[in-house]
């Protein structure tokens, strides 16, 4: 009811950002997911430390320790030990670190490329649009896993950073299409026409007038791109095209210990649970953001 809404807004005014934040924090699933993701990130990076900085966990992922029983989880080794006695908690934390870096890196790169491609295609139309969107179509018709596998192999000498870059380069297509659609409708709005009429240049219109209004779509698509990147990295590493030893990642851990599934199931379950936790919580956050940016999809109980 628009009538009802105008009355309310007059009573107390919120800026658009405040409205979004308010709606987001009322989404319980998203809040829980944010806490879970926060904990995962915190534990993954503080426990074994990054690079030269040491963490609070007293064991490291490379040393072999004396095996306690079969290597099943104990107080000394909460995630258990692998067949040669490595501390599995430290290993999983290292894998989580790498997987998170790859996921967020891929999310960032693909969002940047997708936004720029979509915005230029949608705003300029004509041959720019044709060229950019045919390129997008081309990337879409090649099976993503095959393309990512080939490029990942090429980039393997540069470690996980090379893989991140390559995955970012192949996963922006969906976002570009979304942004283009949004820009196509925004460019016909009166405030864009008004900006054109005072002599505003194309770049300024795109970056100051159009894209800020598409930010909802972009943020939501970016979160979903992150969770998709986690899964893509995992499947690639599992297939042996992703992260290469001595580096490790959650997918690689599962792949390395897949034969141990029946004898030492913890070697399979812990990295699997981490993947699940990260992907699910990122998805829930994306859900919460979408509801917050788009009040029309309101699911609040009356």
């Amino acid at each position, binding site marked *: 009811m628009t009538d009802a809404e105008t009355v309310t807004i007059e009573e107390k*005014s919120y*800026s658009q950002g405040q409205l979004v934040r*308010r709606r987001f924090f009322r989404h319980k699933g998203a809040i829980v997911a944010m806490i879970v993701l926060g904990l995962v990130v915190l534990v993954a990076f503080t426990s074994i430390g990054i690079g030269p900085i040491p963490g609070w966990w007293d064991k490291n992922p490379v040393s072999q320790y004396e095996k306690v029983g079969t290597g099943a989880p104990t107080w000394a080794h909460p995630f258990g030990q692998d067949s040669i006695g490595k501390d599995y908690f430290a290993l999983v934390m290292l894998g989580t670190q790498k997987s998170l870096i790859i996921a967020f890196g891929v999310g960032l790169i693909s969002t940047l490329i997708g936004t720029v491609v979509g915005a230029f295609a949608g705003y300029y139309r004509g041959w720019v649009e044709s060229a950019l969107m045919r390129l997008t179509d081309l990337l879409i018709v090649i099976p993503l896993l095959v393309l990512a596998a080939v490029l990942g192999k090429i980039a393997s000498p540069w470690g996980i950073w090379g893989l991140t870059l390559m995955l970012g380069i192949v996963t922006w297509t969906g976002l570009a299409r979304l942004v283009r659609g949004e820009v196509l409708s925004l460019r016909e709005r009166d405030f864009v026409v*008004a900006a054109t009429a*005072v*002599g505003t240049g194309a770049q*300024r219109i795109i970056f100051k007038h159009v894209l800020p209004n598409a930010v909802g779509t972009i943020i939501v698509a970016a979160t979903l791109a992150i969770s998709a990147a986690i899964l893509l990295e995992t499947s690639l590493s599992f297939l042996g095209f992703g992260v290469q030893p001595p580096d490790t990642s959650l997918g690689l851990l599962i792949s390395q210990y897949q034969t141990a599934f029946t004898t030492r199931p913890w070697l399979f379950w812990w990295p699997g649970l981490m993947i699940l936790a990260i992907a699910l919580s990122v998805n829930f956050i994306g859900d919460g953001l979408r509801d917050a940016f788009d009040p029309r999809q309101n699911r609040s109980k*009356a």
Partner: protein
Amino acid sequence: MPTLDLTSSADIVAGGDAVLAFTDLHVTFGTEFGDVHAVKGVTLEVHPGEVVALVGESGSGKSVTSTTALGLLPGNARVSGSVRVGDKIVGDLDPAALRKMRGNDIAMVFQEPMTALNPVLTIGDQLTEALQLHGLAYGSQAMARAAELLEMVGIPEPRRRLKQYPHELSGGQRQRVVIAMAISCDPRVIIADEPTTALDVTVQADILDLLRSLKDKLDTGILLITHNMGVVADMADRVAVMLKGDLVETGTAEQVLTNPQHEYTRRLLGAVPHLGEGSGQSDEGVRASVEKEKVDAAVPALELDNLVIEYHRLGKPPFRAVDDVSFTVGPGEIVGLVGESGSGKSTIGKCALGLIPAVSGAVRILGEDYGRLRRKQLKDLRRRIGVVFQDPAASINPRFPVGEAIAEPLAVHQVGDAASRKQRVMDLLDAVELPRSFYNRYPHELSGGQRQRVSIARALTLEPELLVADEPTSALDVSVQAAVLEMFLSLQSEFGFACLFVSHDLAVIDLLAHKVVVLQNGRIVEQGDRDTVLRTPREDYTKRLLAAAPVPDPIEQKLRREDRHRLLAELGDEIVELRVDPTSDPEPPAGRKTPGAEGGNPLGGAFHGG
């Protein structure tokens, strides 16, 4: 607030035979910001064969009130009080009984006929749906009845129309189809929610004629929801005025419109621009503003020379939206561009802004030809033109705070530094009578009128010599419109800009234009001084336009209506009315024009009146 009931006792018919009765109706919406009390104790009755107009500005709760009668409020609404349709109490019905009631006892005519009809179903499918759902007729029998209904509302060749889709019909014809759907199950009462707001004035007059004959011949009660006082004067027997959920005044149309008692009603009526009473602008005003600005009076602000604009269509010949149009806007002069939808008036406005290229002819702004400018020169020329659009909600970037929006032209043309820009914005906020504290507010926090003021301030930021205003007040409530127009006039005398004022509302043009240009289908029908064109029009089309514009006085409007019918008879047109006694074969009666339904027009029938 106590309701002033002016209805004299003789007019009150015994309460029992009312077809629609609201008794102490309260509606509250639960929102995420707390409860909103939208309707606060409305008591109202509609009797058979009577039109009750529910009047109020946006947000007054008039649409919510009427929606309760259909039981169509959203889930977060709480209703108390009773709504009676015929002999049924709406609140007591279960969903099945509610469905049975809708259509059979009460029907609705919506504001926007394009969205009220389903674009993927034929007219016939949609008309027969209600008949079949309510078990009144099936198959070929239902089709025959549907053709009969179309015949009744005056749509030519009904059998052929049944197989057509909504987009093949003009706006007026679509609204007739919606009305045909509403009367298909012979309801006792029809709720018409702004039934003519989306239509051109000549089409509006036709639809009002049709609705009037409907209540006369079928004895249906009509609850007419509108903000247009002219429509009220033309149609209503009784009027109820709503303000913020309260019913502040009820009475017969004559009582309320000619002798309003409540202060709000008086204010509302005072704000309605009255065609024929426009103060207009005198030539002295122009001269004064020209002298003030010391501009060369010989160089017109805008000069259109045999302008032709075409829209290119895929696989079809280009559509000529503007054909051989020439007129000039002198410095300091306001020229009103009038026409119905599709007449090309907005296209001309866009061309004057350099947003659409001309196919042939020339557009000269302040002596410079658009076609011959390079990019740099074009940008410089744009500094000297301002623009105000129709919908203030759409024309301000929702992500910019007000101050930044107004300062944007300065930033684009790199004028001044941050401090001087802020000072300029503050001056402009003063000029458009907005508080300076609005500097950091966002557009969605502002009301429609305030947003339009921001939009006008932004247009004036660079002190343009020419302002293009495209229907700047038609999205606003009347009282807001009056204030904005008044401010616009004082700004014009202060800043002395020339203005191309595009509008469909003759009364608004009458209020502020020096010269008037009347457009029809991309061609100029008539142009000249405001007095000449609006008082003593030469062309039939202008006469028809003027005759169709309703005035907010029931007695004067009745005379105008009769004049209009006389004029239509003279011009050989038919007066629209409900044909309740169709011949056995509903085939086209000869001689009626069939506008816009087929071919040759990219925007479907929108270019012609029904």
